[in-house]
């Protein structure tokens, strides 16, 4: 089943800028997709359509098989959670617990149910003990996890994240990544992650969609996408560092044949070990 599908989606802002044009995008349920694109490619605009924050100027958006329209916005917003790039934009309540409870309260749930959901969301995101802290006193990673908890408490089926790893130190960023993987694998959530961190993408994404100037350039599994290095470079992106290294090794030192370049450190390690064993023989 398709989690999200857009058909000929276009959006023009009131001041005349065409943010996205003729987008045909789709994600299978339970997948983990990364939307890659340079600054100003229209990533945020596209994401806001999935949650009904923006309505298409033309074309349509289907979420879990239903078309998004003004009547079913509440349902759509419960099904699709949106995590903003700057946690300070999203954490507007006095305390973390109040903020996490914000979504469930709007769903008109019972008090016990709200409390149970808040507890669950805080537990999943490892924020127990910080319930009564003010968001302004949290660290960057904690803020990010709190904003994920706020969305999680609505029990969505799809979570959209706008640059979830930006402005975090390496360790915090990997912790957030681990949390996202856990959400995807254990809870079966569909994740749509907008980013321009090329190195991290192969680690988590089942599929990559490259957006440029409001249009989809290509969509497919990481191996397929990163094998077209020239096309990627033409839209101001680059290959992952490790892939780039193997590309150089291939082109300059002709170390290996036409095999697929590795995308992650793990794959690269295997490849290097293989190469070394081949030499020994």
């Amino acid at each position: 089943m398709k989690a999200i599908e857009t058909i000929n989606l276009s959006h023009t802002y009131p001041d005349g800028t065409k943010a996205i044009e003729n987008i045909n995008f789709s994600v299978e349920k339970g997948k983990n997709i990364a939307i890659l694109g340079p600054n100003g490619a229209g990533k945020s605009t596209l994401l806001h359509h999935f949650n009904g924050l923006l309505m298409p100027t033309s074309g349509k958006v289907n979420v879990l098989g239903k078309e998004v329209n003004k009547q079913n916005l509440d349902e759509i917003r419960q099904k699709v959670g949106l995590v903003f790039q700057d946690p300070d934009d999203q954490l507007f309540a006095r305390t973390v617990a109040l903020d996490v409870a914000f979504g469930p309260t709007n769903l008109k749930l019972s008090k016990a149910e709200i409390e149970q959901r808040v507890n669950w969301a805080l537990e999943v995101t490892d924020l127990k003990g910080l319930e009564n802290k003010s968001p302004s006193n949290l660290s960057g990673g904690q803020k990010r996890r709190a904003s994920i908890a706020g969305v999680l408490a609505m029990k969505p089926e799809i979570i959209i994240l706008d640059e979830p790893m930006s402005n975090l130190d390496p360790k915090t960023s990997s912790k957030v990544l681990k949390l996202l993987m856990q959400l995807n694998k254990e809870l079966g959530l569909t994740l749509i992650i907008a980013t321009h961190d090329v190195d991290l993408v192969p680690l988590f994404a089942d599929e990559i969609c490259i957006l440029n100037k409001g249009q989809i350039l290509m969509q497919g599994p990481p191996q397929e996408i990163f094998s077209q290095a020239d096309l990627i470079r033409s839209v101001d992106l680059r290959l992952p560092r490790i892939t780039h290294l193997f590309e150089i090794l291939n082109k300059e030192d002709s170390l290996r044949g036409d095999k697929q370049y590795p995308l992650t450190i793990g794959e690269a390690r295997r490849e290097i070990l293989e190469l070394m064993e081949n030499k020994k023989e």
Partner: protein
Amino acid sequence: MFEWLQGDPVNGMLMTLGFFIFLIIGRNLKLRQINKREKNAQTQATDHDLPSADAPKTGSALHRLDARVKFICAITAVFGAVALTRSEYAVIPIIVCVVLAVYAHASLKGYFKRLLYPTYVAIVVAVVQLFVGTHVVATIPYLGWNIYMEGITFAILIFARVLAAASILNLLITVTPMETLLDSLAWFRVPSVILDTTMLMYRYISVVSDERARIYKAQQSRCGYTKSVSVFRKLGNYGTVGGMLLVKSFDRALKVGDAMVSRGYTGTSSLFSYTTKKMEKKDIAIGVLVVLAVVALLLADLGII
């Protein structure tokens, strides 16, 4: 040389008091000037320092007392202090507050510093009152203005009231983190629209204030406020910081609004569901005692007791 001693001993005492206090003030003024010149106003302290719950607490009994009880006590006491008619009685709250502040390990410097602004406002009013009344006690030489008996009593009364009220408020501020009070505002039946706005504003004051500091520093780093810049240009630069701040806040507000809507907010009800704790019996008892004490003071002031 010591003719002044032949008059009234109060003269000598007042003169000594004045001399020493202003000796200290004068020296500090000079020292501050020297310090300023050395530091060249490099570091700008954050001005918004609202008392925060996450700041290290000194866990005195006063801090632990229910914020609602403290707030009600403070309001009653302030209204009591304002209603006083005899200046002698105002000394009681002033002393009680200082003692309690010391008990709560509050910073006395901050405590007295906060009394400065009310004192300034009171001085003008009190001085004006000196010249109102019927019984002339003295005349200012050369100007010919009469100082009246009633005026002096009233001026002293106003001063005493202001100091008493300010002390009470001061104590409340030093022992009550803003946030605990905010959380209990719902209990006071504040309308939800106002509550929502208050909570959101409180949340974003620190964010906006940090932003302000950053913009200001960015201007400073490019010599926006050095000596060579003219006064009006400087004021203009300050205004630009304000304008930028508003523009940035507006952009942020649009995103915050998106974040609200994306989690199902429709604007028909209040933003948050406020829950309030039950008050402890011990706290209620303390509150009742304080209110009774205030009433007793007022009755004594009116001469009923």
